[in-house]
Structure formats: structure tokens, C-alpha cells
């Protein structure tokens, strides 16, 4: 990574990003041959593409995304899943790891249940289908749920997973991160409180300097105290 792309420059909608040498990437638009920011975010240049990495906004599903969903309605042959997005996603009985008879859906997943699922398909009008038919996908029980902006997910994970690994190591919690911004964790009550505080810190300070160090300091301070 060169020095230039490491500078976290805030851009606003309508800000000029490039006047002719680069190609328009995510979060940008072209007007009169120039590239402008289409949203508030951080300017990022990768292989001659200029992008804007959002700092907020709603999660828009893409096929293959691992998400954490919440059952909000039940039909005879499907469940409706809220995926923390403008688009609710149906989960069809053929897309669950169990054999479900017609009309028997409520026996398997109830309204209010939380599940680890994957986005199967998204059509051009953003009609979404999700699936649980893959190893590791399942209903989540116990623990707790935190919701953050989907745009902060990469920061919670950190470079090569360093941030989340650090939180897991200190708190001994099991943590699943959905691409949609929902995070599930399980562990001791005390540990979950700390893990949640750490995640809140990242959520609120995602664009600030030395975030990893600050989160580390925080975890260090609470766990040193307890020993």
C-alpha cells in the first residue's frame, strides 16, 4: 500500500475526486468526464480506481454475503427474515438443513429467532433470497446480538482479522460477524460486556487514528484489573 492511499481523506457528496487519470469505482459518479464522490465516506485509490468507502448507510445485500438475520414472519413454505437492510429476505423451506412439511414451518424457526445465513440471490429489483443450506449456517441461541453499521464491519474485523482476534483472545467470547452489521457473541456475562464495549468503541471511532491501540488499551485495562 503506498503512502497516498493510507491517508484517510473524508469526502462529501459532490467532491471532485479525479479529473481524468483514474477510473470511477464504488461510491462515485462521472460528470463531464470528471469523477465525483457520490456519498460521504473515505476516499480510497486501488489499482487506478478511485472509490468512496462509506461511513454509514444501510446494508444492501449481495450474493454470497454471510449475514445474521431475524425471523419476522412465517408462511406455510417460507420464513421472512429481516437482514438489517431495506429489503426483507424470504427463506424457503428448500433452503434449510431440515426436511420441513408444508405448513410445518413454525416448528423449526419461530418469529424472533436469530439465524446465521447466506445471501443466495439478489435480482435487479433487489428481491433477495437467503439460504441456510451450507455448513456452519444455523439458528443462533443464547449469547447476545449487537447491531452496528455494515460499513464498520471491516474495521471490527481489522487487518487480516487482527482486531476481532484480539477481542476474542482477551474476552474468550465466541463471535460471529454478519456482513450486514449484526454481530453475535457468546461467553461469560462479564466478558460479553467487555467485548460489546470494545465493538461499540470501534463503531463510534471507526474513522479515527490508532483505533487498534485504543481498543487494546481498553481491553488491557479491564483484564489487568480483574486478575
Amino acid at each position, binding site marked *: 500500500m503506498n503512502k497516498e492511499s493510507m491517508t484517510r481523506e473524508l469526502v462529501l457528496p459532490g467532491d471532485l475526486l479525479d479529473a481524468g487519470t483514474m477510473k470511477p469505482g464504488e461510491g462515485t459518479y462521472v460528470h463531464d468526464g470528471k469523477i465525483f464522490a457520490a456519498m460521504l465516506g473515505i476516499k480510497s485509490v486501488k489499482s487506478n480506481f478511485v472509490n468512496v468507502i462509506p461511513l454509514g448507510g444501510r446494508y444492501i445485500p449481495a450474493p454470497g454475503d454471510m449475514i445474521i438475520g431475524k425471523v*419476522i414472519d412465517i408462511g406455510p413454505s417460507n420464513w421472512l427474515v429481516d437482514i438489517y437492510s431495506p429489503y*426483507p429476505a424470504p427463506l424457503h423451506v428448500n433452503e434449510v438443513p431440515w426436511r420441513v412439511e408444508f405448513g410445518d414451518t413454525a416448528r423449526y424457526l419461530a418469529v*424472533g429467532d436469530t439465524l446465521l445465513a447466506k445471501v443466495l440471490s439478489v435480482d435487479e429489483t433487489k428481491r433477495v433470497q437467503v439460504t441456510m443450506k451450507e455448513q456452519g449456517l444455523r439458528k*443462533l441461541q*443464547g*449469547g447476545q*446480538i449487537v447491531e452496528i453499521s455494515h460499513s464498520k464491519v471491516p474495521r471490527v474485523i481489522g487487518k487480516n482479522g487482527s482486531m476481532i482476534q484480539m477481542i476474542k483472545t482477551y474476552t474468550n467470547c465466541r463471535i460471529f460477524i454478519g456482513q450486514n452489521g449484526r454481530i*453475535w457473541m457468546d461467553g461469560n*456475562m462479564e466478558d460479553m*460486556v467487555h467485548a460489546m464495549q470494545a465493538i461499540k468503541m470501534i463503531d463510534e471511532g471507526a474513522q479515527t487514528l490508532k483505533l487498534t491501540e485504543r481498543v487494546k488499551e481498553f481491553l488491557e485495562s479491564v483484564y489487568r484489573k480483574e486478575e
Partner: protein
Amino acid sequence: MARSVVSEIKRDHIHRLIADGRRVDGRAWDQYREIMVQTNVVETAEGSARVKIGNTEVIVGLKMTVGEPFPDTPNRGVLSTNAELIPMASPSFESGPPDENSIELARVVDRGIRESQMIDLERLCVEPGKKVWINFLDIYVLDFDGNLFDACNLGAVAAIKSATVPAKANGLGEDFPMPVTCTPVAVTSVQIENSILVDPTLDEEKVAADRLTVTTDDNGDLRAMQKGLSGALTLEQVRTAIDTSRRLGAEIRKLIG
């Protein structure tokens, strides 16, 4: 709809925390969130206040005009209280005329002020049977994170206390401060898993079985109460909630002096 379905995991988590003697935001059961009160925030009102309790925020304005008294109270001013749950404040609020929630809210706030005789309505009589001051108390919820009853009461009381009666503009002599006799304070608790928690957040309200609002006056006497939600309280829980309301009510009263 998505928002109205409470995740089982969240519900269980709140229950487990409470069984462990804790709350989601780390507060003690009888601990209030941070309160911020700002008065005279709107010049076009005779009195106004903006109040924050944690992330819950309301703005209240009092407008006064001269009008006719009710026939059964010819020598008393009139108080009319209205609450608006505007869609700005929450993804679950919708545009439209006041629904049962905002009507209940307005009536509970009104009751606390009326029953404590906070406003000396007799001093708001201009000409018995003909002319009295009409008070329009309008409450707008701007940001909703639970416990609207207390926030709206506090906003209403602060707005009334800050008000100046616009006598001059109405050709009735010099302006004078709103005649106020006491400071009624509402303190609300909820019951979750047989525990009584004061000043609930939205997440706590969503899983609560009962809600009890207790409005006390300067002496710590009870002036208005409202039990809400479809659970049942034991007599012991009622007493606990009242004790908390009297104690915290006295502290909150100092804030708005």
C-alpha cells in the same frame, strides 16, 4: 414490522442480565440516565424547554392566549395538553393524528400538572366568566429511546416554569411570570422478571411486562399514577416503584429548581 419483532436473543440477554443484577447500559436498577434541561429555547413560545434523558429527547412549548373559561370553572384559566409522536423521533412512529399512545402520554402529563395544581389557574383569570388565560402545552418527541412519560413531564414542567404571561401584548397590563405553586415530577419504572427498573431504555421497554409512572409533588406526596402494559404488579412491586419515584423525584426536582 421488522423493528417491532423483538429478537429472542436480545430478550433472553436482558433477562439474564437482570437475573444477574445488571442492566444493558451498566446502570443500577434505581439509577437514572443523565438528564439535560434547557429552557427558553423557542422565542415564539411563552415558555419552552428541551429535555434529554439519555438518548430520549423532547421539546415542549407553552402558548398562551386570552379566551373564554369553561362554564363550570368561570374563574380559572384553561390548560390543554397535547403530545405529538412525530416520525422524526423513531422508525416506529407514523405521521397522522395522535394515536392512543400519544393521547395516553398527554393525559398522564396533564394529570400530574393539573392534580398537583402546579399552575395557579385562579391567578390566570382575567374577568370571571368571560376572560381567562388559555394555556396550550404542546409536547413534541424528537428522539425516542424509552421513558417518554418522564421526559415529557419534565419538559412540560420546565416549559411552564420558564413561561412569562404575555399580558402586555394582549393589552392586560404588565407581563408577569407564570404563577407556579410546585414542581410535579414523574418517575417511571418497569417490571422485568420481577425486578423493578427505573427510567427504562427502549430495549428495556420492549421486553417489560409492566410500567408504572408515579408523579410526586414537592412534599413527596403522590399526585398522579399510571400503570401501563399488559402484565401485573405485586403490591410489593408497587411500593418499591413508589419509593424510587419519591426519592428520585426529589433529586430531579432540584435540577429544575
